[in-house]
């Protein structure tokens, strides 16, 4: 058990190291000179040279990388070009709206996706089952930006029931959260359904039924618990899907979160901000999946010994 936890933590650290290399690579090795981008177009060659020296861009790459790593560890990500403020605090301010949105969408995914999958499996080959399969296929096929636009058109423009852009209260959360949740909700519902169908066909379920347990107990206690491992894995991976989806969803609904900030910063070539967003998104994903992996050991004791 201890060695398993240790190994997983070590893997996560290695992955984080890889993430730092990728971010460094994207921002430094690929073409595009930050010094030139920060200075006005008419800056002299000497000024560019001076700024490059200040940034340490004239040092060999490995020295630059060590400097980059140590500044990250210190939490110093440099100044945002567009906001003229520390990149860390620029991103920090935008975390809450994104967290709000992601949490709402994740709740929808768990609270609607999982029960829909369980119900579809227990009502296998009924209209409810076919209906949910159809909805899930749809949910996985509609591009989320288009779904967002269609929701705006229906509930905002035509019916006028809900606000369509900005972030000023709970009502503003509804359309973006539904848009963001559509894909993961469909995926989770489908996976829960197939996982439940498989488990409900097992012998121990027949045993549980034959010893006279109520159907409810059979499904909830024996079925759901055993079907939960693949579902928990996928739920963990959905954090990445939600963070990625937030990039587009926030752009559609003018939601002032990290996703919209990332897109704006890329257009503004605001590299310090992009750097924070990339590292933050990857770190959150790694940490959550580490937690999910450790959760398995609770759900399935066999994993501890493998």
């Amino acid at each position, binding site marked *: 058990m201890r060695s398993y936890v240790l190994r997983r933590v070590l893997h996560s650290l290695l992955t984080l190291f890889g993430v730092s290399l990728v971010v460094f690579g994207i921002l430094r090795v690929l*073409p595009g000179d930050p010094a030139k981008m920060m200075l006005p177009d008419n800056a002299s060659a000497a000024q560019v040279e001076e700024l490059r020296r200040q940034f340490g861009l004239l040092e060999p790459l490995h020295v630059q990388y060590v400097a980059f790593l140590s500044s990250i560890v210190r939490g110093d990500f440099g100044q945002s070009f567009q906001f003229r403020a520390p990149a860390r605090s620029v991103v920090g301010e935008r975390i809450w709206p994104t967290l709000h949105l992601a949490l709402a969408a994740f709740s929808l995914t768990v609270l609607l996706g999982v029960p829909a999958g369980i119900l579809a499996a227990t009502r296998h080959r009924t209209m409810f089952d076919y209906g949910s399969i159809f909805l899930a*296929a749809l949910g996985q096929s509609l*591009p989320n930006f288009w779904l967002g636009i*269609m929701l705006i058109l229906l509930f905002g423009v035509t019916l006028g029931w809900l606000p369509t852009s900005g972030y000023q209260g709970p009502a503003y959360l509804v359309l973006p959260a539904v848009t963001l949740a559509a894909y993961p909700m469909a995926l989770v519902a489908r996976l829960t359904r197939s996982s439940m169908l498989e488990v409900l066909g097992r012998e121990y379920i027949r045993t549980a039924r034959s010893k006279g347990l109520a159907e409810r107990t059979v499904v909830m206690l024996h079925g759901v618990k055993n079907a939960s491992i693949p579902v928990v894995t996928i739920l963990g991976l959905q954090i990445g899907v939600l963070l990625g989806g937030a990039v*587009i969803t926030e752009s559609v609904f003018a939601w002032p979160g990290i996703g919209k900030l*990332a897109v704006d910063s*890329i257009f503004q070539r605001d590299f310090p901000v992009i750097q924070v967003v990339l590292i933050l998104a*990857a770190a959150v994903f790694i940490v959550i999946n580490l937690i999910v992996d450790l959760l398995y050991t609770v759900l399935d004791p066999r994993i501890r010994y493998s």
Partner: protein
Amino acid sequence: MTAAETSVEGAPVAQRALVRGGSWRQVLGRSLRRNPTIVIGGGLLLLLVLSAVLAPVLAPANPTQAGFSTRVRPPSILGTSSGFVLGSDNLGRDILSRVLYGGQLSLSLAAASVVLSGIIGVAAGLVSGYVGGRVDDAIMRIVDVQLAFPVILLAIAVVAVIGTSTTALIGVLALSGWVIYARTVRANVLSVKEQEYVGAARALGAGDVRIVLLHVLPNTMAPIIVVATVQLATMLLLESGLSFLGLGIQPPTPSWGRMLAEGRDYLSNAWWISTVPGIAISLAVLGANLLGDGLRDVLDPNLRGM
């Protein structure tokens, strides 16, 4: 139910069909009847590919021909006499023609990136699974790093740095897609390489390259085909998402995502500009998803829930 059918209950459908025998036409026909999703999904995809290929013949107008006097005309299939079957956009261009031509770009970009990411991912998976040890560890850590970044975020960062050429776009899409092939192929290779026929080939003096290409690869084709089909859906969504954010192929070449983004500002008075390309993307993604689901059931039921 016949005796032959009961005896092979639970086997993949294709195998069941084979057990029952008959000419390949009968086998194929039976498989397809049992899996209407393959027919529906494949048919949908085929229809869209054909209409894109035949765009020069089918399109009623030049897709880039603007006209001031014909701006934002509603679709004539709704009973108006606008002269545009699916309406015209904000620059007076025929939307039907643009959707047909847009399919050429969207579908070929998606297909090209599926093939490219497939080649990279399959190669990585084969090496990782067959060689094992440190090489396997290294490749899997790279996969972990890649998975830690939200795909769209990585894609927009790379596109922003290297620009939006067709080659860059295919490269970015392929870069984000190879991991899933690598993981799937690796898992399959691990089980295939323990098979007796691989041992037999080695005993006969076959080299590693020969074993991998002639014995291991053909036996991992089923999951590769399934992954490729599902990836086509993912690539279509990703490409249209990038175009939507303004990071796709630049105007005037129409692409579905770009058309959708252009119609956003006209939602309240010309909903069809965004709606029509959105339906096209959704149908293509739905087709690929359904086809992938059907193929998975026939070829490799173990991949369910992927």
